[in-house]
């Protein structure tokens, strides 16, 4: 009897301290440098979900510690180490870039941290280096390229000219495209990383007379390419395709009319019609006065995924097996509608094709069709989970 009373008092005491001490979430992302807007959007999406629940996720008070990785792997490791040692963080998220993720994630999950990726999805982490503590709520890196390849294939273009920067993610992108595109490859070009002038490539491209062009040039490189493609008059003769990364709402603001008509593969669009998404887009616009990007949607989903697992376990992250089991179920309303995890903790989801249109004064995306239903990445088989 007394023993039971002690347990009751103790549990009340524990739950009181748990209530007084919010759950810390380490949010490591890229906020400075020119790529800073990516991290900004993921953070804003994530914080919107926290705010909508009055500072809680799944009924648990959370404290989100946001830190900048300056897009550098070594800085990422330094900040992540501080999260663990100084703040005793056991739950992390936020990384934008694959090279940062490859440096930070294996180290953290091996120390028992649970990491939810809201963006970067390098193939190694989906395949041979997969880990029970690692989840990716966005995509595996190849997915959007695969969808674009499948779309170009299904639309009946007999040849494609493909370009990407000469670095690992560029090669993965073209490999992803070719995995589903069956037509002739009229040219395969690897450009310099950070290149700003594409006139030589465009002249060679025009001479090759392909039926379609696919490119993966993230950030400023894509802005340069799309502008110059249109200035050379090529957008009138050869249709351009790419992953959503070069056509998010903020890049479109910088590219302008030059991007109109481009089809791009994405797992999400702001006009994807489901209740959660409509509510998310409205709330995001109201709070930040801009249209959310896919990155913001991924941040929002990451927060709601965490919330679902916290709700299922009553906020107890110390029992990791139960928490991971709850994450695996992915019982949350995704802004993408259909969403579940594969055995390697990467999404099985629908992927769409969007068209860039001009809506009044604004250049924006419009959903044009579904390319894949319940698509899973190509590396799940290499994962031992």
């Amino acid at each position, binding site marked *: 009897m007394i023993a039971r009373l002690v347990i009751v008092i103790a549990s009340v005491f524990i739950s009181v301290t748990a209530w007084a001490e919010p759950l810390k979430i380490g949010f490591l992302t890229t*906020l400075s440098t*020119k790529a*800073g807007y990516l991290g900004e959007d993921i953070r804003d999406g994530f914080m919107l979900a926290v705010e909508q629940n009055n500072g809680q996720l799944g009924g648990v008070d959370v404290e989100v510690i946001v830190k900048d990785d300056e897009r550098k792997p070594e800085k990422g490791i330094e900040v992540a180490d501080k999260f663990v040692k100084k703040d005793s963080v056991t739950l992390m998220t936020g990384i934008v870039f694959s090279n940062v993720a490859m440096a930070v994630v294996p180290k953290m999950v091996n120390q028992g941290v649970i990491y939810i990726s809201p963006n970067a999805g390098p193939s190694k982490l989906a395949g041979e280096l997969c880990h029970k503590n690692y989840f990716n709520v966005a995509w595996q890196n190849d997915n959007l390229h695969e969808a674009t390849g499948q779309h170009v294939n299904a639309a009946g273009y007999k040849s494609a000219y493909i370009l990407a920067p000469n670095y690992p993610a560029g090669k993965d992108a073209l490999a992803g495209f070719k995995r589903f595109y069956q037509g002739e*490859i009229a040219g395969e070009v*690897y450009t310099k990383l950070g290149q*700003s002038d594409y006139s030589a490539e465009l002249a060679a491209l025009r001479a090759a007379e392909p039926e379609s062009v696919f490119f993966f040039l993230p*950030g400023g490189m894509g802005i*340069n390419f799309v502008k*110059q493609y249109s200035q050379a008059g090529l957008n009138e003769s050869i249709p351009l395709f790419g992953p959503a990364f070069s056509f998010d709402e903020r890049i479109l603001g910088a*590219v302008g009319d030059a991007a109109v008509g481009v089809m791009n593969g994405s797992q999400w669009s702001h006009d994807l019609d489901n209740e959660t998404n409509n509510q998310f887009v409205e709330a995001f616009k109201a709070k930040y006065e801009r249209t959310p990007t896919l990155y913001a949607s991924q941040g929002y989903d990451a927060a709601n995924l965490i919330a679902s697992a916290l709700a299922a376990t009553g906020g107890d992250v110390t029992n990791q097996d139960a928490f991971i089991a709850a994450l695996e179920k992915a019982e949350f309303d995704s802004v993408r509608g259909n969403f579940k995890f594969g055995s390697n903790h990467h999404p099985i989801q629908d992927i769409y094709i969007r068209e860039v249109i001009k809506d009044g004064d604004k250049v924006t995306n419009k959903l044009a069709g579904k390319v894949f239903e319940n698509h899973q990445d190509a590396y799940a088989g290499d994962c031992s989970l």
Partner: protein
Amino acid sequence: MILFIEQLFNGLQLGVTLFLLASGLTLVFGIMGLINLSHGSLYMVGAYVTATVTNHTGNFFLGICAALVCAAILGVIIEMTIMRRLYHRDHLYQVLATFGLILFFNESVRIIWGSQPLFIDIPQSLNFTVNLFGQGGYPAYRIAIIVLGIVILLALFVLIFYSKIGMLTRAGSSNREMAQALGININRLYTGIFAFGAVLSALAGGLAGPIYAVEIGMGESVLILAFVVIVIGGIGSIKGSFIAALLIGIVDTLGRAYLPAFFKTFMSASDGAVVGGSLASIAIYLLMAVILVVKPQGLSSKL
């Protein structure tokens, strides 16, 4: 063959763009002996101011003018507050201080304009293509840049060799103390040269805006090329940097256009593209190494 000529033309255009940036750098480096890494930041500021003013007024030329004025003012401020303390120091101090300026400008631009890249379009009057090579358009805007680059080259020549300011500059450059003893106000002259270099840099940035992404750090990648140009051209030489800029523009363009195709003749398409692409991106550095072995002072002697 037509494609080859078009690629040469592309190289020429890239070369002229590089020259616009390198001319200001070589003036400051050659005459004042100052390594200014923040030259690329002025290029960025030029592009940002041009984009902002153009978007508000709808007039690109007004935008460029505003950028030039801003750069001149910034140049004067930077020279008087920071650079003036560095002339007598080792190059390492100059590198350190001007690298600090890069970080300062990048963060300032992020605070003022945000991290999202800016939009700026080609002015309507130049937004068409010219059918130069019989197989599709060449943007008129790029032809305008080539013409402007050559005009600026000529203007610089006249300014340096046939004007009084040019004479003072050459005097100050060959012997600072003697020029001062003859009553030339070197401090004011140096402020003027630095501001002029800043203006040239901002002009290059403003002109690049409609073609390239206007984003934070946009100056750093071109700055490296500009340094290659002035090293090959001979430090301080306008003529040398013009020749070097064209050489680099053409070698870089032809490398990108033909090296991958060359490797594909005896490799698989994918491997050829990777190897050729990698080699193309180091082609200009190979060129620089060869030229420096043959002519360690660069292609042209001073001014």
